[in-house]
């Protein structure tokens, strides 16, 4: 039973445009959400997070939006750059551990 889902395995965007990565969750008890970025042959690195008491958190080109009623969060990258090409995982914090989605592979074309 997948509690955190990323339904798009891949996404391709042009350099300079917006990338939107989506994530859905089922457990309303999750109270903190994170996005990680992973390059091939490296471990995931933390990107941005949001508490469930907020609906938006921004850090430079990266913004995370949380819609609690829909149990949905999204990561916006504006403008997208070729160096953003990686696999992005969303994660939800619950019971002292993180539950990860399946990941979305983002490809930013020059």
């Amino acid at each position, binding site marked *: 039973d997948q509690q*955190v889902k*990323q339904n798009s*395995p891949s996404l391709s965007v042009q350099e300079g445009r917006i990338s939107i990565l989506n994530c859905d969750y089922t457990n309303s008890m999750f109270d*903190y959400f*994170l996005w*990680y970025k992973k390059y091939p*042959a*490296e*471990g*995931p*690195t*933390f990107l941005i*997070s949001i*508490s469930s008491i907020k609906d938006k958190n921004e850090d430079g080109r990266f913004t995370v939006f949380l819609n609690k009623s829909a149990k949905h969060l999204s990561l916006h990258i504006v403008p997208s750059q070729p160096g953003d090409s990686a696999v992005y*995982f969303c*994660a939800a*914090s619950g019971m*002292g*551990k*993180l*539950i*990860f*989605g*399946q*990941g979305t592979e983002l490809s930013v074309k020059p």
Partner: protein
Amino acid sequence: DVKVTQSSRYLVKRTGEKVFLECVQDMDHENMFWYRQDPGLGLRLIYFSYDVKMKEKGDIPEGYSVSREKKERFSLILESASTNQTSMYLCASSGAGGYNEQFFGPGTRLTVL
């Protein structure tokens, strides 16, 4: 610069072998985690530990065990490796408290033949 290191980047073992994967963190973190990453399945938690000599099962503990004798070191053990344990194994650590981000090692690509 914070660091999580894993003993091997690539490992090839035979079915039935006992396999040890070592993880060391230098951040004095209380929590340590072992995940495996498989295509289409994301990161799945195998075991985690909140303190020395403590361990908790994650979502897929079958076929694995762990050891945490020192705060900075967390070992994953495959008692008798099988081909379905071929995967990328990732170790992570985090500080005490519920909302601390996890820091990951570079991963070990294990192939079981």
